């Protein structure tokens, strides 16, 4: 065998290795807390694989992490400069650290450089900037509003109307409870659905900028309006209006209670639409579901034209991998994301929609209409809190609704945790 012929079998191996190294040159990995077939993760995965067909070098991989382990995982990855290209990050303080250490990209600069800044919804951008010290460091994969979803059939059968004030809401709940109907479904196991109610009440009491004022130190969580908010939510729990064993109810069970007609109302964000639009789970029918905003409270300065808004779980881009290849990937995926998410999942996102589907789900249309009427948006109760303060707020909310802690103690503990 000559040297020339001996080298021949090596050539395909070398070219395969070369192809492999090219393929591995710029893989795009998305670390998500969602399952691969859920919500924004599903849409991004589908678009990324579409892009991969014409750009094999941009191999797409998906990684999952439970939300409870996310912060720990991100810190370990960041410490070894191994963060994936796109990743969820659920703690604003951690996101800030990652941005300062050059591991989270300035997306305003990135999108402007790519010439696709106009694909972003200005309202969603403003919301993200407000949450992150004036910087656009996360993608607006969703644009959600939160409010009370209610069972129209139950309301009609009991002669009830959408309440406009907290007093009317309680009156409705009293009437439903008297007839043996559970007024609210809520997941105390998740905890945050309880604190959302405290935050909503406080926003009605002090105005939509209430938590910004807490952050600035001009309002204290021990002020009477906050204690009143905690007491209002505690009263619901004490009256058993969340049903038996609220603290053991997980998210899916709470949604199912509402969708099976076992509870008249549920306070939730519009991300829940994918569950509502699931005919297998929704036994009451989408046409039977209505949405009203957090009602006004006595002596409150807040307006019912203000809604609690958010852009879904924060998703950042790794600045260390933010090169031309990743730029092309971002451009491909996020110029199509808004249209695809709306058409396929009825999801409202913070990206512009250029092709509105003809048959939008009725609840998606309803949410869009409500979104258009938003005067001011406010963030959720713990949006500005440290991880420790968030934990104090959510953990103790369970004790608050069972009456094991007083509203004053709840707010004092929380105020202490802010220090």
């Amino acid at each position: 065998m000559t040297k020339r012929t001996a080298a021949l079998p090596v050539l395909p191996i070398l070219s395969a290795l070369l192809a492999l190294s090219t393929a591995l040159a710029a893989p795009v990995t998305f670390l998500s807390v969602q399952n691969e077939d859920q919500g924004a993760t599903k849409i991004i995965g589908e678009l990324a694989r579409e892009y991969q067909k014409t750009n094999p070098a941009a191999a797409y991989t998906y990684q999952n992490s439970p939300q409870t382990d996310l912060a720990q995982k991100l810190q370990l990855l960041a410490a070894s400069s191994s963060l994936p290209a796109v990743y969820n990050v659920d703690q604003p303080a951690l996101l800030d650290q990652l941005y300062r250490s050059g591991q989270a990209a300035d997306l305003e600069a990135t999108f402007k450089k790519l010439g696709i800044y106009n694909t972003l919804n200005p309202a969603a951008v403003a919301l993200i900037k407000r949450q992150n010290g004036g910087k656009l460091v996360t993608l607006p994969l969703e644009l959600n509003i939160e409010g009370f979803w209610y069972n129209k059939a139950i309301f009609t059968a009991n002669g009830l109307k959408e309440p406009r004030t907290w007093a009317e809401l309680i009156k409705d709940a009293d009437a439903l409870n008297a007839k043996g109907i559970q007024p609210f479904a809520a997941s105390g196991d998740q905890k945050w659905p309880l604190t959302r109610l405290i935050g909503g009440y406080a926003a009605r009491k002090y105005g939509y900028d209430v938590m910004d004022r807490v952050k600035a130190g001009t309002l204290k969580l021990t002020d009477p309006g906050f204690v009143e908010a905690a007491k209002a939510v505690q009263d619901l729990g004490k009256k058993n209006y969340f049903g038996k064993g609220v603290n053991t109810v997980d998210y899916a069970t709470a949604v199912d209670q509402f969708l099976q007609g076992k509870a008249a109302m549920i306070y939730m964000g519009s991300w829940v639409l994918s569950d509502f639009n699931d005919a297998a789970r929704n036994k009451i029918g989408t046409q039977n579901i209505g949405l009203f905003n957090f009602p006004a409270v006595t002596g409150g300065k807040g307006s019912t034209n203000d809604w609690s808004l958010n852009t879904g779980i924060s998703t950042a881009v790794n600045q260390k991998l933010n090169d031309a290849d990743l730029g092309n990937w971002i451009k491909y995926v996020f110029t199509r994301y808004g249209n695809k998410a709306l058409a396929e999942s009825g999801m409202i996102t913070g990206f512009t929609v250029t092709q509105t589907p003809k048959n939008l789900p009725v609840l998606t249309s309803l949410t869009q209409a409500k979104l258009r009427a938003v005067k001011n948006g406010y963030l959720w109760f713990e949006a500005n809190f440290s991880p420790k303060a968030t934990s104090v707020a959510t953990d103790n909310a369970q004790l608050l609704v069972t009456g094991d802690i007083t509203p004053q103690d709840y707010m004092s503990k929380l105020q202490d945790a802010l220090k």
Partner: protein
Amino acid sequence: MERTLRDWRAITIFVGPALLLFIVILVIPIVWSLGYTLTEGSVIAGFHFVGLSNYARLFQDSAFWSALWFSVKYAALVSAGQVFFGLMLALLYSFYLKRSSVLVRTLVFLPVVLPTVAVAQLFVKLFAITPQYGFLNSFLHAVHLDALVQPWLGQGGSAFWVIVLMDVWKAMGLYAVLLYTGLMDIPEDTLEAARLDGAHGWKLTQFIILPLLTPVIVTSLIFSLNGTLKVFDSVLALTGGGPGTSTTPLTLYMYKTSFSYSQYGYGSTIAVALTLLCLIVSLIIIRRSRED
């Protein structure tokens, strides 16, 4: 043999590798962790020296004292339960069931080999209230005791007792087998002599069996206390430390502090406190048993 033990080269060859491994995987991380207790910061932002302020914070932290109290209360009750019921089962195997105890031993030992998460899921279902009643609430409802139907795992008070019950049930089989082997070691002629002297039942247990079994009981208590003081998985799987923080032991508080709140320095300080607690408890038991 004696010459070998005086030979430094032999010692280096035989003990050296194990000692080196021990130092690398145990001593260095412990010292490293102790170093973290003097710092504040995170792996991203970096660490800076803060002296003993983490230790000072420990004394003022109500959440730490609450977690410590939970750990101590839980460890005392669960250890007592595990060893007491283990002893009762061992006596049952040895004196009543005798050779036919194999089936009972296997059944009682079964929870020991089950994963804690599976056992916790079982207990969640047993004590459930929503969306359906679990076994206990169904039973109470069936016998018209609806006033007693309650969210057992949704209230701090009752959730604590459910965790205690679960962990006693899960581990008593282990201690039963351990104590059974101790009982097997008691010479039959000693028992026979005691019986001839008129010692039966409780008197035989009190004056002959328990004194002879004391070393095994003490060992069981040390095992159990050290295990229960470090409880983590069963609490996490059953209640997640809640409702609120009512079932949060020191280990879970340490985990949350380090990994959820990203306060590694303070988390390490809680870990040091837990290590000291385990050490103190073990020393107390050993000293008391020596005095006896």
